[in-house]
């Protein structure tokens, strides 16, 4: 079974990131957000949805997200930083409590920032050595800004 890093541990990845329209949807699927929005009533049980860069989170506003175990956010390229805002907005604006999973071409050196904006699981591309990635799975110990872990900027904590 493929692996991923979740909550700081390497574990089996039981969900399937559905990128291909033709793939069969099962209760383990993470389906495209747009598809889920369009077919919400008929799509059946799914593990969660994933956002493409460019989707934004406004499309999920006002919906009950508690039924989703996971929301994935795709990084088409690791330098495409839109997903950093999406994760934060899911947490802070839409009050989503479930797993937020990074998907795609992000890299282990981004883990510190990803953790701070609310990602807690990381489905790296196959070539990434997860043991080595785990060594980078912590932010710098000082944060000047507030983040999802602690909304207080440094001036409220000094």
């Amino acid at each position, binding site marked *: 079974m493929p692996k991923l890093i979740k909550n700081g541990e390497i574990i089996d990845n039981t969900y399937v990131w559905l990128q291909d329209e033709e793939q069969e949807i099962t209760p383990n699927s993470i389906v495209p957000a747009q598809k889920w929005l369009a077919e919400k009533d008929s799509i059946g049980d799914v593990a969660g949805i994933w956002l493409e860069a460019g989707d934004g989170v406004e499309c999920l506003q006002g919906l009950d997200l508690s039924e989703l175990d996971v929301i994935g956010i795709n990084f088409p390229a690791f330098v495409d930083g839109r997903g950093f805002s999406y994760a934060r907005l899911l947490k802070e604006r839409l009050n989503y409590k479930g797993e937020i999973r990074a998907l795609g071409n992000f890299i282990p050196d981004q883990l510190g920032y990803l953790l701070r904006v609310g990602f807690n699981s990381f489905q790296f591309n196959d070539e990434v050595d997860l043991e080595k990635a785990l060594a980078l799975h912590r932010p710098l110990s000082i944060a000047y800004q507030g983040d999802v872990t602690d909304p207080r900027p440094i001036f409220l904590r*000094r």
Partner: protein
Amino acid sequence: MYQYDAIDQQLVEERVAQYRDQTRRYLNKELSEEAFLPLRLQNGLYIQRHAPMLRVAIPYGMLSSTQLRKLADISLRYDRSYGHFSTRQNLQLNWPKLEDVPDILAELAEVQMHAVQTSGNCIRNTTTDQYAGVIADEIVDPRPYCELIRQWSTFHPEFAFLPRKFKIAVNATESADRAATQVHDIGLHIKKNDAGEIGFKIIVGGGLGRTPMVGVTITEFMPRKDLLTYLDAILRVYNQNGNRQNKYKARIKILVKALGIEEFRKRVEAEWAHLKGKESTVPMSEFDRLSRFFSEPAYEALTNQPQELISKLADSAGFARWYERNTFDHKKPGYRIVTLTLKKPGQAPGDATAEQMFKAADLADKFGFGELRVSHEQNLVLADVRQDQLTELWEVAKEFGFATPTLGLLTDMICCPGGDFCNLANAKSIPIADQIQDTFNDLDYLYDLGNIDLNISGCMNACGHHHVGNIGILGVDKKGEEFYQISIGGASGHDASIGKILGPSFGQEEVSGIIQKLMNVYVENRSEEERFIDTYRRVGITPFKEAAYAKAN
């Protein structure tokens, strides 16, 4: 100036360790070239034509003598004994070894310095007026606000991978804008409202590069407590909506232009509605804390124009010239702001040798409470010099090449490193600066011409700010040969404007001859006391164009 506490120090030290590990993994091929690129850029390391270039951050241009000595020392031991001060108040080392960079950073951390976010698509060093805190007519000292922004922007987790680089500059006086704020991604003008509260006029979407634009006002007055939440809102709108396909259309200015300021403002306000009043609202205690770092030094009770100064001004035309050009009114009686110019003929604009850096540090200790500033025009500034010590300072400054009395004049050029060093450049810029220095070497003539900003960039990226020079020179490549496009009418102050291109470009050897022709047109057309830019604005581009392209009789 700001002093790190244990928290700030720990952060830079952790960053050194993090970057050391990234360099190690890159060198043993665990990190790909592609992955290492933005990581090293976010740490100010470019790979240039001959060698890497490391850009060291000098937050809002403030340097202690200890820090400057460290920079000099690093340039001696890790580089070729000189550095280049940039238009954004940073210092560039042109020849460090990639594998030495972690050690350089560790040494910088010893003196509370770093290279964090001096490049890459993230929030860069915040810049401000080099006369901050020592001029009489500023609303408040902008530096505590710059430090607030520095901390907010340092390792901001959401905005480390923006569509493109992001630059913020702060101004705090109506009388001038020495930080070119209107051609920054965000320009902040400190204001006081009718109730006496401090806030910011916020200008967004200025920038140079391929598509130069003067920024537009998004809000006339934002109370200072709300500054960070409002900046977060602007950045969040930009991070999600900026162009990610084409790097030449990725700066915030393109987004603001495309949406129009009303729509852009609407989106920012909608975002801000969620952030306003939340934790990032800055409490008074933080403004107080930051302000304490910028309290006044122990000024003596002195009077203006002491006898020593009056007699020296009368006795020495050279001193009088330097005093007139290179020193500036100080808010305290008996003090003067002195610019140590880095525009000596034969030396690239903004370059300082290790020896000069050591000397400037000594001068700061002796005459300036141990502090210096770096200016946008690529000079060094001693902000607090006693008027009765100006003669002594001038003598030493002359000896070390700091007293070229041309501040603000035609030969006080802004110039990028250009094709001699930079990979991006289409053409060399330093030889053009040399040529102009050689041609315009008559001080009387330069004084007669008065204030003229001449800016040179070696390519469209516009690091030399050619668009906002009264005269701008841009290096272009035509079939492998270097040519120079000349524009006129740019300005970077409160009257910011983008220069207009004169016409077809010129060969390298023609440049100073063309500048001479432009000066002739100015001299013939000016009314008394009229600056070059004002004459240009009155008479338009045509006479200049005609003179530049007239066939010789």
